[in-house]
Protein backbone atom coordinates (compact mmCIF):
# COMPACT_ATOMS: atom_id res chain seq x y z
CA UNK A 1 0.00 0.00 0.00
CA UNK A 2 1.49 3.31 -0.99
CA UNK A 3 1.40 5.95 1.68
CA UNK A 4 1.58 9.24 -0.14
CA UNK A 5 3.10 12.21 1.66
CA UNK A 6 2.69 15.88 1.10
CA UNK A 7 5.62 18.13 1.83
CA UNK A 8 4.15 18.96 5.26
CA UNK A 9 3.85 15.26 5.92
CA UNK A 10 7.49 14.69 5.00
CA UNK A 11 8.51 17.54 7.28
CA UNK A 12 6.62 15.92 10.15
CA UNK A 13 8.49 12.66 9.58
CA UNK A 14 11.78 14.56 9.40
CA UNK A 15 11.15 16.45 12.65
CA UNK A 16 10.01 13.31 14.46
CA UNK A 17 13.13 11.43 13.38
CA UNK A 18 15.75 14.14 13.29
CA UNK A 19 17.62 12.62 16.26
CA UNK A 20 17.75 9.21 14.60
CA UNK A 21 19.13 10.81 11.44
CA UNK A 22 21.80 12.68 13.42
CA UNK A 23 22.71 9.42 15.15
CA UNK A 24 22.94 7.70 11.76
CA UNK A 25 25.17 10.43 10.35
CA UNK A 26 27.45 10.14 13.37
CA UNK A 27 27.51 6.36 12.98
CA UNK A 28 28.58 6.93 9.36
CA UNK A 29 31.49 9.02 10.62
CA UNK A 30 30.23 12.60 10.34
CA UNK A 31 31.35 13.48 13.88
CA UNK A 32 30.66 17.09 14.87
CA UNK A 33 29.41 17.93 11.41
CA UNK A 34 26.35 15.72 11.89
CA UNK A 35 24.06 18.55 13.04
CA UNK A 36 25.00 20.77 10.10
CA UNK A 37 24.61 17.87 7.72
CA UNK A 38 21.12 17.00 8.88
CA UNK A 39 20.09 20.62 8.31
CA UNK A 40 21.63 20.49 4.86
CA UNK A 41 19.80 17.24 4.26
CA UNK A 42 16.48 18.84 5.04
CA UNK A 43 17.27 21.82 2.85
CA UNK A 44 18.07 19.60 -0.12
CA UNK A 45 15.12 17.31 0.40
CA UNK A 46 12.60 20.10 0.86
CA UNK A 47 13.72 21.98 -2.24
CA UNK A 48 13.72 18.87 -4.40
CA UNK A 49 10.57 18.55 -6.48
CA UNK A 50 9.19 15.06 -6.33
CA UNK A 51 5.91 13.20 -6.31
CA UNK A 52 4.44 11.05 -3.53
CA UNK A 53 7.04 9.21 -1.45
CA UNK A 54 6.25 5.63 -0.56
CA UNK A 55 8.47 5.34 2.51
CA UNK A 56 9.40 8.77 3.85
CA UNK A 57 11.72 7.69 6.67
CA UNK A 58 13.68 5.41 4.38
CA UNK A 59 13.82 8.22 1.84
CA UNK A 60 15.36 10.54 4.44
CA UNK A 61 17.87 7.91 5.56
CA UNK A 62 18.85 7.31 1.96
CA UNK A 63 19.32 11.05 1.40
CA UNK A 64 21.53 11.18 4.51
CA UNK A 65 23.55 8.23 3.22
CA UNK A 66 23.97 9.94 -0.17
CA UNK A 67 25.17 13.12 1.55
CA UNK A 68 27.92 11.14 3.30
CA UNK A 69 28.84 9.43 0.03
CA UNK A 70 29.10 12.84 -1.71
CA UNK A 71 31.26 14.13 1.11
CA UNK A 72 33.60 11.18 0.89
CA UNK A 73 33.80 11.51 -2.89
CA UNK A 74 34.68 15.23 -2.63
CA UNK A 75 37.43 14.52 -0.14
CA UNK A 76 38.90 11.81 -2.34
CA UNK A 77 38.72 13.96 -5.47
CA UNK A 78 40.45 16.81 -3.65
CA UNK A 79 43.22 14.45 -2.57
CA UNK A 80 43.60 13.14 -6.11
CA UNK A 81 43.69 16.67 -7.49
CA UNK A 82 46.38 17.67 -5.03
CA UNK A 83 48.43 14.72 -6.10
CA UNK A 84 47.95 15.62 -9.77
CA UNK A 85 48.93 19.24 -9.27
CA UNK A 86 52.12 18.29 -7.55
CA UNK A 87 53.28 16.40 -10.62
CA UNK A 88 55.51 18.34 -12.98
CA UNK A 89 57.25 17.74 -16.27
CA UNK A 90 61.00 17.73 -16.83
CA UNK A 91 61.13 21.53 -16.94
CA UNK A 92 59.31 21.83 -13.64
CA UNK A 93 56.16 23.02 -15.42
CA UNK A 94 53.05 21.66 -13.72
CA UNK A 95 51.32 18.93 -15.71
CA UNK A 96 47.69 19.66 -16.37
CA UNK A 97 46.68 16.81 -18.65
CA UNK A 98 46.80 13.13 -17.80
CA UNK A 99 50.22 11.90 -18.83
CA UNK A 100 50.59 9.08 -21.29
CA UNK A 101 51.15 6.58 -18.48
CA UNK A 102 47.88 7.57 -16.84
CA UNK A 103 46.01 7.09 -20.08
CA UNK A 104 47.62 3.71 -20.62
CA UNK A 105 46.90 2.81 -17.00
CA UNK A 106 43.26 3.71 -17.42
CA UNK A 107 43.01 1.65 -20.60
CA UNK A 108 44.63 -1.33 -18.95
CA UNK A 109 42.28 -1.04 -16.02
CA UNK A 110 39.27 -0.93 -18.34
CA UNK A 111 40.57 -3.98 -20.20
CA UNK A 112 40.96 -5.93 -16.97
CA UNK A 113 37.46 -5.00 -15.87
CA UNK A 114 36.12 -6.09 -19.27
CA UNK A 115 37.92 -9.42 -18.87
CA UNK A 116 36.36 -9.89 -15.43
CA UNK A 117 32.90 -9.19 -16.81
CA UNK A 118 33.52 -11.78 -19.52
CA UNK A 119 34.40 -14.34 -16.85
CA UNK A 120 31.43 -13.41 -14.69
CA UNK A 121 29.07 -14.16 -17.55
CA UNK A 122 26.21 -12.33 -19.21
CA UNK A 123 23.64 -12.65 -16.44
CA UNK A 124 25.94 -11.53 -13.62
CA UNK A 125 27.11 -8.61 -15.75
CA UNK A 126 23.50 -7.64 -16.42
CA UNK A 127 22.61 -7.86 -12.74
CA UNK A 128 25.58 -5.67 -11.83
CA UNK A 129 24.71 -3.09 -14.47
CA UNK A 130 21.00 -3.00 -13.72
CA UNK A 131 21.62 -2.67 -10.00
CA UNK A 132 24.75 -0.57 -9.64
CA UNK A 133 24.56 1.63 -12.74
CA UNK A 134 20.87 1.83 -13.57
CA UNK A 135 19.71 1.72 -9.94
CA UNK A 136 16.95 -0.85 -10.50
CA UNK A 137 15.74 -2.62 -7.33
CA UNK A 138 16.91 -6.23 -7.06
CA UNK A 139 13.32 -7.42 -6.78
CA UNK A 140 12.57 -5.96 -10.23
CA UNK A 141 15.79 -7.24 -11.76
CA UNK A 142 14.73 -10.72 -10.66
CA UNK A 143 11.44 -10.25 -12.54
CA UNK A 144 13.21 -8.90 -15.62
CA UNK A 145 15.53 -11.86 -15.79
CA UNK A 146 13.00 -14.46 -14.72
CA UNK A 147 15.06 -15.66 -11.75
CA UNK A 148 14.66 -15.60 -7.97
CA UNK A 149 15.65 -12.63 -5.84
CA UNK A 150 18.29 -14.75 -4.07
CA UNK A 151 19.86 -15.54 -7.45
CA UNK A 152 20.11 -11.83 -8.11
CA UNK A 153 21.56 -11.27 -4.63
CA UNK A 154 24.17 -13.95 -5.21
CA UNK A 155 25.07 -12.68 -8.65
CA UNK A 156 25.53 -9.22 -7.23
CA UNK A 157 27.60 -10.46 -4.31
CA UNK A 158 29.94 -12.42 -6.60
CA UNK A 159 30.26 -9.63 -9.17
CA UNK A 160 30.88 -6.93 -6.58
CA UNK A 161 33.44 -9.03 -4.68
CA UNK A 162 35.43 -9.81 -7.80
CA UNK A 163 35.33 -6.22 -9.10
CA UNK A 164 36.17 -4.77 -5.69
CA UNK A 165 39.16 -7.10 -5.35
CA UNK A 166 40.39 -6.06 -8.78
CA UNK A 167 40.03 -2.35 -8.01
CA UNK A 168 41.92 -2.82 -4.74
CA UNK A 169 44.71 -4.70 -6.51
CA UNK A 170 45.16 -1.86 -8.94
CA UNK A 171 45.30 0.89 -6.33
Amino acid at each position, binding site marked *: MIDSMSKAGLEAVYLANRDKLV*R*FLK*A*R*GAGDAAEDLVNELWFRVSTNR*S*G*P*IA*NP*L*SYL*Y*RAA*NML*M*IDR*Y*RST*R*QAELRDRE*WSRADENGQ*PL*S*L*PSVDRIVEARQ*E*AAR*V*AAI*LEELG*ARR*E*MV*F*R*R*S*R*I*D*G*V*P*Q*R*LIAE*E*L*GVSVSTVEND*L*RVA*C*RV*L*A*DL*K*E*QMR
Partner: protein
Amino acid sequence: MTRSIDDDALEWAIRTGDPEFDDWDGFTSWLEADPAHPSQFEIASGVLEDAGRIVATLPLRHSAEPANDPKPGRRRFLQWSGGAVAAAILLGTGLSLWGARPQPYMIETAAGEVRTVALSDGSEIVVAGGSRLMLDRSKVRFAALEQGGALFVVKHDASAPFTVQAKGLSMTDLGTVFEVQLEKGSTRVAVSDGAVLVDPEGARLRLDPGQAVVASGAVLRREPAGEVGAWREGRLIFNDVTIGEVADALTRHLGIEVVASEAVASRPFSGTIDAAGVAKDPASLGPLLGVGVRTSDRRWVLQADR
Protein backbone atom coordinates in the same frame (compact mmCIF):
# COMPACT_ATOMS: atom_id res chain seq x y z
CA MET B 1 46.43 -12.25 -1.29
CA THR B 2 44.66 -10.64 1.67
CA ARG B 3 41.30 -9.09 1.04
CA SER B 4 41.39 -5.51 2.15
CA ILE B 5 37.69 -4.94 1.51
CA ASP B 6 35.81 -6.45 4.43
CA ASP B 7 33.04 -8.93 3.49
CA ASP B 8 30.46 -7.40 5.81
CA ALA B 9 31.28 -3.88 4.66
CA LEU B 10 30.88 -4.96 1.05
CA GLU B 11 27.59 -6.67 1.85
CA TRP B 12 26.26 -3.48 3.44
CA ALA B 13 27.50 -1.40 0.52
CA ILE B 14 25.58 -3.66 -1.85
CA ARG B 15 22.43 -3.77 0.25
CA THR B 16 22.24 -0.04 0.93
CA GLY B 17 22.76 0.59 -2.77
CA ASP B 18 19.39 -0.98 -3.51
CA PRO B 19 16.68 1.72 -3.80
CA GLU B 20 14.25 -0.48 -1.85
CA PHE B 21 16.61 -1.09 1.09
CA ASP B 22 14.82 -0.53 4.35
CA ASP B 23 16.88 -1.86 7.28
CA TRP B 24 18.48 1.43 8.32
CA ASP B 25 18.31 0.50 11.99
CA GLY B 26 20.25 -2.70 11.29
CA PHE B 27 22.79 -0.74 9.25
CA THR B 28 23.20 1.84 12.05
CA SER B 29 23.77 -0.96 14.58
CA TRP B 30 26.47 -2.52 12.45
CA LEU B 31 28.16 0.87 11.93
CA GLU B 32 28.18 1.49 15.67
CA ALA B 33 29.36 -2.04 16.55
CA ASP B 34 33.02 -1.35 15.80
CA PRO B 35 35.01 1.88 15.26
CA ALA B 36 36.53 0.36 12.13
CA HIS B 37 33.16 -0.20 10.47
CA PRO B 38 32.36 3.32 9.21
CA SER B 39 35.60 3.66 7.27
CA GLN B 40 35.44 0.07 6.03
CA PHE B 41 32.01 0.86 4.68
CA GLU B 42 33.16 4.08 3.01
CA ILE B 43 36.04 2.29 1.33
CA ALA B 44 33.85 -0.58 0.13
CA SER B 45 31.23 1.85 -1.10
CA GLY B 46 33.81 4.00 -2.90
CA VAL B 47 35.48 1.03 -4.56
CA LEU B 48 32.12 -0.28 -5.79
CA GLU B 49 31.29 3.12 -7.20
CA ASP B 50 34.63 3.26 -9.01
CA ALA B 51 34.08 -0.20 -10.42
CA GLY B 52 30.61 0.79 -11.58
CA ARG B 53 31.98 3.87 -13.27
CA ILE B 54 34.41 1.79 -15.30
CA VAL B 55 31.81 -0.81 -16.20
CA ALA B 56 29.50 1.98 -17.37
CA THR B 57 32.09 3.04 -19.93
CA LEU B 58 32.35 -0.43 -21.44
CA PRO B 59 30.00 -1.21 -24.31
CA LEU B 60 27.14 -3.57 -23.62
CA ARG B 61 27.71 -6.89 -25.32
CA HIS B 62 24.78 -8.14 -27.37
CA SER B 63 24.67 -11.32 -25.29
CA ALA B 64 24.23 -9.35 -22.07
CA GLU B 65 20.52 -8.69 -22.55
CA PRO B 66 17.61 -9.82 -20.38
CA ALA B 67 16.28 -13.24 -21.32
CA ASN B 68 12.70 -12.07 -21.65
CA ASP B 69 13.46 -9.01 -23.78
CA PRO B 70 10.93 -9.07 -26.66
CA LYS B 71 13.12 -7.02 -28.99
CA PRO B 72 16.27 -8.67 -30.36
CA GLY B 73 17.84 -5.25 -29.82
CA ARG B 74 20.89 -4.79 -31.94
CA ARG B 75 22.51 -1.43 -31.57
CA ARG B 76 22.22 0.17 -34.98
CA PHE B 77 23.68 3.25 -36.47
CA LEU B 78 21.55 2.85 -39.57
CA GLN B 79 19.32 5.27 -41.34
CA TRP B 80 16.09 5.92 -39.66
CA SER B 81 12.95 4.78 -41.41
CA GLY B 82 10.54 7.54 -42.41
CA GLY B 83 7.46 5.90 -40.89
CA ALA B 84 8.72 6.55 -37.39
CA VAL B 85 8.33 10.33 -37.59
CA ALA B 86 4.64 10.42 -36.75
CA ALA B 87 5.16 8.12 -33.78
CA ALA B 88 8.07 10.28 -32.59
CA ILE B 89 6.02 13.46 -32.51
CA LEU B 90 3.10 11.81 -30.73
CA LEU B 91 5.05 10.08 -27.99
CA GLY B 92 6.87 13.19 -26.84
CA THR B 93 9.10 12.91 -23.83
CA GLY B 94 9.81 9.23 -23.54
CA LEU B 95 8.49 6.23 -21.65
CA SER B 96 8.11 5.98 -17.91
CA LEU B 97 9.07 2.49 -16.92
CA TRP B 98 9.08 2.08 -13.17
CA GLY B 99 6.14 4.29 -12.30
CA ALA B 100 5.53 8.01 -12.42
CA ARG B 101 7.89 9.06 -9.64
CA PRO B 102 10.92 10.75 -11.20
CA GLN B 103 14.30 9.41 -10.12
CA PRO B 104 16.69 11.95 -11.51
CA TYR B 105 20.43 11.61 -11.26
CA MET B 106 23.20 13.79 -12.53
CA ILE B 107 26.28 12.92 -14.52
CA GLU B 108 28.79 15.63 -13.84
CA THR B 109 32.22 15.66 -15.42
CA ALA B 110 35.21 17.63 -14.23
CA ALA B 111 36.97 19.84 -16.73
CA GLY B 112 39.28 17.66 -18.80
CA GLU B 113 37.32 14.50 -18.12
CA VAL B 114 35.41 12.58 -20.79
CA ARG B 115 32.92 10.01 -19.58
CA THR B 116 30.82 7.50 -21.48
CA VAL B 117 27.52 6.54 -19.91
CA ALA B 118 25.82 3.34 -21.04
CA LEU B 119 22.05 3.46 -20.68
CA SER B 120 19.97 0.41 -19.99
CA ASP B 121 18.35 0.57 -23.41
CA GLY B 122 21.69 0.13 -25.13
CA SER B 123 22.21 3.80 -25.95
CA GLU B 124 25.41 5.55 -25.01
CA ILE B 125 26.19 9.12 -24.13
CA VAL B 126 29.75 10.43 -24.30
CA VAL B 127 29.89 13.40 -21.96
CA ALA B 128 32.53 16.05 -22.53
CA GLY B 129 34.56 17.78 -19.83
CA GLY B 130 32.96 20.39 -17.61
CA SER B 131 29.48 19.17 -18.37
CA ARG B 132 26.31 18.32 -16.52
CA LEU B 133 23.81 15.83 -17.85
CA MET B 134 20.63 14.91 -16.07
CA LEU B 135 19.15 11.47 -16.55
CA ASP B 136 16.13 9.85 -14.95
CA ARG B 137 15.83 6.20 -13.99
CA SER B 138 12.08 6.37 -14.49
CA LYS B 139 12.49 7.78 -18.00
CA VAL B 140 15.07 5.76 -19.84
CA ARG B 141 14.71 7.54 -23.18
CA PHE B 142 15.38 11.01 -21.87
CA ALA B 143 18.33 13.25 -21.07
CA ALA B 144 18.68 16.90 -20.15
CA LEU B 145 21.97 18.60 -20.90
CA GLU B 146 22.40 21.39 -18.38
CA GLN B 147 25.95 22.42 -19.15
CA GLY B 148 28.71 21.64 -21.63
CA GLY B 149 28.35 19.07 -24.37
CA ALA B 150 27.66 15.44 -25.13
CA LEU B 151 27.56 13.02 -28.02
CA PHE B 152 24.53 10.78 -28.12
CA VAL B 153 24.61 7.32 -29.69
CA VAL B 154 21.02 6.26 -29.56
CA LYS B 155 19.73 2.76 -29.98
CA HIS B 156 16.89 2.80 -32.43
CA ASP B 157 13.42 2.15 -31.07
CA ALA B 158 10.61 3.48 -33.23
CA SER B 159 8.05 3.05 -30.44
CA ALA B 160 10.05 5.07 -27.90
CA PRO B 161 11.96 8.03 -29.30
CA PHE B 162 14.89 9.40 -27.34
CA THR B 163 14.39 13.01 -26.28
CA VAL B 164 17.15 15.41 -25.32
CA GLN B 165 16.49 18.76 -23.74
CA ALA B 166 19.19 21.38 -23.80
CA LYS B 167 18.30 24.61 -22.04
CA GLY B 168 14.78 24.94 -23.31
CA LEU B 169 15.48 23.44 -26.72
CA SER B 170 14.00 20.02 -27.20
CA MET B 171 14.98 17.42 -29.76
CA THR B 172 13.94 13.91 -30.61
CA ASP B 173 16.15 11.33 -32.22
CA LEU B 174 15.06 8.56 -34.47
CA GLY B 175 18.01 6.20 -34.19
CA THR B 176 21.04 8.39 -34.48
CA VAL B 177 24.44 9.65 -33.57
CA PHE B 178 24.31 13.33 -32.76
CA GLU B 179 26.01 15.94 -30.68
CA VAL B 180 24.66 18.74 -28.51
CA GLN B 181 26.82 21.60 -27.33
CA LEU B 182 25.76 24.35 -24.94
CA GLU B 183 27.55 27.67 -25.21
CA LYS B 184 26.84 30.84 -23.23
CA GLY B 185 24.33 32.28 -25.61
CA SER B 186 23.48 29.40 -27.90
CA THR B 187 22.92 25.68 -28.26
CA ARG B 188 24.26 23.66 -31.17
CA VAL B 189 22.97 20.32 -32.42
CA ALA B 190 24.86 18.41 -35.12
CA VAL B 191 23.93 15.05 -36.63
CA SER B 192 26.44 12.44 -37.70
CA ASP B 193 24.14 9.53 -38.51
CA GLY B 194 20.39 9.02 -38.67
CA ALA B 195 18.10 12.00 -38.12
CA VAL B 196 17.04 14.34 -35.36
CA LEU B 197 13.88 16.38 -35.07
CA VAL B 198 14.70 19.66 -33.37
CA ASP B 199 11.94 21.47 -31.49
CA PRO B 200 9.28 18.86 -32.24
CA GLU B 201 6.50 21.00 -30.76
CA GLY B 202 7.48 24.14 -32.62
CA ALA B 203 9.78 24.70 -35.56
CA ARG B 204 10.06 20.96 -36.33
CA LEU B 205 13.45 21.29 -38.00
CA ARG B 206 14.71 17.99 -39.28
CA LEU B 207 18.47 17.45 -39.29
CA ASP B 208 19.98 14.78 -41.50
CA PRO B 209 23.60 13.57 -41.33
CA GLY B 210 26.03 16.40 -41.92
CA GLN B 211 23.53 19.02 -40.82
CA ALA B 212 23.53 21.18 -37.75
CA VAL B 213 21.48 23.94 -36.21
CA VAL B 214 22.45 26.69 -33.80
CA ALA B 215 19.71 27.94 -31.48
CA SER B 216 20.27 31.40 -30.05
CA GLY B 217 17.35 32.93 -28.22
CA ALA B 218 14.35 32.30 -30.43
CA VAL B 219 16.38 31.99 -33.60
CA LEU B 220 17.31 28.67 -35.21
CA ARG B 221 20.07 28.90 -37.79
CA ARG B 222 21.16 25.98 -39.98
CA GLU B 223 24.80 25.29 -40.76
CA PRO B 224 26.96 22.37 -41.88
CA ALA B 225 27.70 19.86 -39.13
CA GLY B 226 31.43 19.70 -39.67
CA GLU B 227 33.09 16.94 -37.69
CA VAL B 228 30.64 15.65 -35.12
CA GLY B 229 32.22 14.61 -31.85
CA ALA B 230 35.73 15.59 -32.91
CA TRP B 231 36.37 16.72 -29.36
CA ARG B 232 36.66 13.10 -28.39
CA GLU B 233 39.90 13.03 -30.36
CA GLY B 234 40.97 16.32 -28.86
CA ARG B 235 40.04 18.46 -31.86
CA LEU B 236 37.93 21.45 -30.94
CA ILE B 237 36.21 23.03 -33.91
CA PHE B 238 34.92 26.58 -33.72
CA ASN B 239 32.67 28.28 -36.20
CA ASP B 240 32.26 32.01 -35.69
CA VAL B 241 32.50 32.10 -31.91
CA THR B 242 34.23 34.62 -29.65
CA ILE B 243 37.68 34.24 -28.10
CA GLY B 244 35.90 34.19 -24.73
CA GLU B 245 33.92 31.13 -25.83
CA VAL B 246 37.12 29.48 -27.06
CA ALA B 247 38.66 30.08 -23.63
CA ASP B 248 35.63 28.49 -21.92
CA ALA B 249 35.72 25.47 -24.23
CA LEU B 250 39.45 24.98 -23.62
CA THR B 251 38.88 25.14 -19.87
CA ARG B 252 36.22 22.46 -20.03
CA HIS B 253 38.24 20.27 -22.31
CA LEU B 254 41.71 20.61 -20.83
CA GLY B 255 40.90 20.94 -17.16
CA ILE B 256 43.07 24.01 -16.85
CA GLU B 257 41.62 27.47 -16.41
CA VAL B 258 41.85 29.50 -19.59
CA VAL B 259 40.53 33.04 -19.48
CA ALA B 260 40.29 35.78 -22.07
CA SER B 261 41.04 39.35 -21.08
CA GLU B 262 38.39 41.98 -21.75
CA ALA B 263 40.44 43.36 -24.61
CA VAL B 264 40.19 40.15 -26.64
CA ALA B 265 37.17 38.28 -25.26
CA SER B 266 34.67 39.43 -27.86
CA ARG B 267 36.89 39.03 -30.92
CA PRO B 268 35.51 36.47 -33.39
CA PHE B 269 37.27 33.21 -34.19
CA SER B 270 36.73 30.29 -36.56
CA GLY B 271 39.10 27.36 -36.79
CA THR B 272 40.24 24.07 -35.30
CA ILE B 273 42.36 23.73 -32.19
CA ASP B 274 44.25 20.55 -31.43
CA ALA B 275 43.86 20.42 -27.66
CA ALA B 276 46.74 18.01 -27.01
CA GLY B 277 49.16 20.11 -29.04
CA VAL B 278 48.10 23.26 -27.24
CA ALA B 279 48.42 21.59 -23.83
CA LYS B 280 52.05 20.74 -24.60
CA ASP B 281 52.77 24.16 -26.04
CA PRO B 282 50.38 26.84 -24.79
CA ALA B 283 52.27 29.55 -26.61
CA SER B 284 51.08 28.03 -29.90
CA LEU B 285 47.61 29.33 -29.10
CA GLY B 286 48.95 32.83 -29.62
CA PRO B 287 49.46 32.91 -33.40
CA LEU B 288 46.43 30.67 -33.87
CA LEU B 289 44.05 33.05 -32.13
CA GLY B 290 45.95 36.27 -32.78
CA VAL B 291 46.46 36.93 -29.08
CA GLY B 292 49.22 36.97 -26.50
CA VAL B 293 49.31 34.01 -24.11
CA ARG B 294 50.46 34.43 -20.54
CA THR B 295 50.78 31.15 -18.64
CA SER B 296 51.03 30.85 -14.88
CA ASP B 297 50.76 28.01 -12.43
CA ARG B 298 47.18 26.98 -13.04
CA ARG B 299 45.76 29.32 -15.57
CA TRP B 300 46.41 30.78 -18.97
CA VAL B 301 45.39 34.29 -19.89
CA LEU B 302 44.65 35.25 -23.48
CA GLN B 303 45.40 38.92 -23.89
CA ALA B 304 46.09 41.58 -26.48
CA ASP B 305 49.28 40.91 -28.40
CA ARG B 306 52.00 43.55 -27.97
